[in-house]
């Protein structure tokens, strides 16, 4: 009993929204307040790592082509890498803050994977549009994790980083298996539903 792909996108959107809220709360309250409770430190890194773990079954069961499989595999790896590094930093196993650059790598690789695995043009159908948009959003927003690596206490970069996840959540919630985008739907895409 497999969920339709769009439902899987919505579940990941929910996880991204959670990530965004945790990071936004940290950005508003400030890192010192956020660190006052040990469990809070592990919240978003664990969620990120968990999303990476859940991306593996998505890669195995939901990909219909090699390029799709490679893209989902890349997302699984970078999500787990970035989550594990943040967990290591939170636990004190990793000390050098430069490790935070793995989140920039995760954003950059995710953006490239989105753009590389979408073979259709922007207005082919909604998912094609969203893949292009998500790809460019990840590439553009990668400036925030990069800047956060060198300016970890900057509220602007922390907020931008958090809002990038919220934006990704909104885009993933918009996803449908086959649906028009701005009134455009290629006849090659198939029959829209709902």
């Amino acid at each position: 009993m497999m969920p339709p792909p769009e439902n899987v996108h919505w579940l990941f959107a929910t996880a991204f929204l959670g990530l965004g809220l945790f990071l936004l709360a940290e950005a508003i309250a400030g890192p010192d307040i956020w660190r006052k409770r040990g469990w809070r430190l592990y919240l978003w890194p664990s969620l990120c790592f968990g999303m990476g773990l859940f991306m593996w079954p998505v890669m195995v069961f939901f990909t219909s082509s090699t390029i799709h499989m490679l893209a989902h595999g890349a997302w699984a790896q970078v999500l787990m890498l970035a989550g594990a590094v943040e967990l290591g930093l939170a636990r004190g196993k990793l000390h050098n803050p430069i490790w935070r650059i793995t989140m920039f790598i995760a954003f950059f690789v995710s953006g490239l994977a989105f753009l590389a695995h979408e073979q259709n043009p922007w207005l082919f159908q909604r998912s094609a549009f969203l893949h292009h948009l998500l790809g460019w959003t990840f590439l553009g927003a990668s400036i925030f994790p990069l800047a956060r690596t060198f300016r970890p206490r900057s509220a602007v970069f922390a907020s931008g980083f958090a809002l990038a996840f919220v934006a990704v959540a909104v885009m993933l919630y918009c996803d449908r298996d086959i649906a028009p985008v701005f009134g455009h739907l290629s006849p090659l895409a198939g029959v829209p539903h709902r």
Partner: protein
Amino acid sequence: MSTQLATEVQTGERRRRLARRVAVSLLGPLTAGVGVVWALAQPYRVTLLHPHGQGFWNLAVEPPLLVVLVGVLFQLLILPALLEDLAEESDS
């Protein structure tokens, strides 16, 4: 520092702390509110309102309700301790 300047600095700092507490407190309700507005704007996305013929996954995964759930869980599980810590900082 003169007492007047010190008072102004303290007042500014107090305002900033209050603004942070208000902003953090609004995250959950705002998120849940967005979910409710979405459900009202696109009721067809809440399949529980018309469950006939829907499969398990379409009934279990309802995007507007998931957004509400995230907001409510944040409000119930994350916010209380965070507000406590912010209040402690204000008192100190």
